[in-house]
């Protein structure tokens, strides 16, 4: 019964390395968090399942010839995150931001979460056993953008080895936004500030919405070409949406196309969750830095709002500054909820959508800076 022996030699039980078993557990944990705790299930369920599949010994699902290996080409080439951006663009309504343009500055301020974390990651090199290169630090810092596809895009370019940990951290903390942000928001604002009611947003014409993505891509072309792939695909999606002349393309981009790519993207990210890449002290560092990144971004957004109130008459409720980290639409909802704790009739949701989508642009701009300067 040589066959029986060979099949025994081919079993997972015979071949499991401790690291693989542990990573299988990590994959199952992600699936559990996605389903039972509602942690960004659209991404974390496929990522977790990808981790399970790619850590099955012998099967080689993530190695050359396996399906996850082929799918990963979509991340390596940058195509998957860019197509996700196309879909997100065709889902995004820039109306609230166009109605109150100064909220763009809140989206700018929150990017301090990125650059502060970059500094933090470099400082962690002082801890024995941790070693982050400048590229690593930049890739980790982008978690502070609170924007999954941007993080995956940048990480796949600057530090592919850290991609798994960075994506997991990014999506986990996005899911944890309702836990991370409120204490910071409350600590940095007075009750009076949280009670500020904002004037109703003006109606934004269809034409304005249509011209905006064109203005944005032209500005990007002029000033920051390295951000053009991300911002460009986002603008294309948004233009398809707002132009109203290619509805069938826009519908497909925001439904079937983004769904298919999401499945493939999640599985591919999961395929990078190998023991050798994930079970390192560095991962702990990344998880720590991710939490710091979200906190800094939140604080910077709130403080920026308070600063703006010193200079302009039309007051901004500083809570919406926290939405500048993006994590669309979670952080906008958090701002709204904290506001209603003080006054149930104070609806901040639409006001928070402005900095929220501005945060997407802001982190794409920051990504462009990192891609241009970190080599």
């Amino acid at each position: 019964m040589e066959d029986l022996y060979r099949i025994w030699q081919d079993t997972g039980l015979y071949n499991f390395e401790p690291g693989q078993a542990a990573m299988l557990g990590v994959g199952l944990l992600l699936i559990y968090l996605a389903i039972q705790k509602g942690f960004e299930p659209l991404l974390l369920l496929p990522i977790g399942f990808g981790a399970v599949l790619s850590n099955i010994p012998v099967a080689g699902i993530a190695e050359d010839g396996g399906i996850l290996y082929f799918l990963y080409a979509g991340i390596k080439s940058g195509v998957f995150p860019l197509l996700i951006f196309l879909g997100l663009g065709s889902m995004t309504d820039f109306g609230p931001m166009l109605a109150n343009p100064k909220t763009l500055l809140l989206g700018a301020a929150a990017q301090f979460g990125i650059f502060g974390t970059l500094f933090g990651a470099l400082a962690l090199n002082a801890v024995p056993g941790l070693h982050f290169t400048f590229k690593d630090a930049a890739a980790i810092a982008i978690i502070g953008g609170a924007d999954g596809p941007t993080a995956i895009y940048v990480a796949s370019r600057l530090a592919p080895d850290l991609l798994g940990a960075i994506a997991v951290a990014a999506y986990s903390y996005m899911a944890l936004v309702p836990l991370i942000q409120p204490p910071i928001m409350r600590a940095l604002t007075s009750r009076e500030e949280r009670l500020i009611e904002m004037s109703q947003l003006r109606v934004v014409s269809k034409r304005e919405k249509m011209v905006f993505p064109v203005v944005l891509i032209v500005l990007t072309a002029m000033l920051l070409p390295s951000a053009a792939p991300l911002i460009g695909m986002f603008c294309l999606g948004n233009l398809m949406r707002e132009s109203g002349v290619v509805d069938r393309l826009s519908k497909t981009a925001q439904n079937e196309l983004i769904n298919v790519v999401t499945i493939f993207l999640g599985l591919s990210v999961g395929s990078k969750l190998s023991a050798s890449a994930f079970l390192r002290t560095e991962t702990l560092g990344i998880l720590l830095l991710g939490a710091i990144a979200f906190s800094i971004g939140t604080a910077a957004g709130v403080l920026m709002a308070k600063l703006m109130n010193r200079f302009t008459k039309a007051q901004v409720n500083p809570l919406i500054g926290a939405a500048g980290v993006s994590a669309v639409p979670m952080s906008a909802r958090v701002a709204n909820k904290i506001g209603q704790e003080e006054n149930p009739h104070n609806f901040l949701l639409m006001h928070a959508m402005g900095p929220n989508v501005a945060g997407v642009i802001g982190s794409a701009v920051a990504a462009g800076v990192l891609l241009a300067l970190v080599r």
Partner: protein
Amino acid sequence: MEPSITDLLQNGLQLMIVGMGIVFLFLALLVAAVTALPRLLRRVAGEKAYEQVAPTPLATSEPAIDTDVMSAIQTAIRLYETQN
């Protein structure tokens, strides 16, 4: 040779300053552009054109087939009205 932590931190600080600067510059420019946008559009389109845009959006969407059906039905109705 590996760069020292001090070097790394110095570069990080520099990148932070430049990066935040560019982010703010870019988004501030966008604030300016977006603020100017409605006025600009109104000037380009002219007051009348601008007002004319308002009522149309409902009738814009594409499927041109309905147009044909519409005109056939329209014709049928016209015919009916003139002949009765």
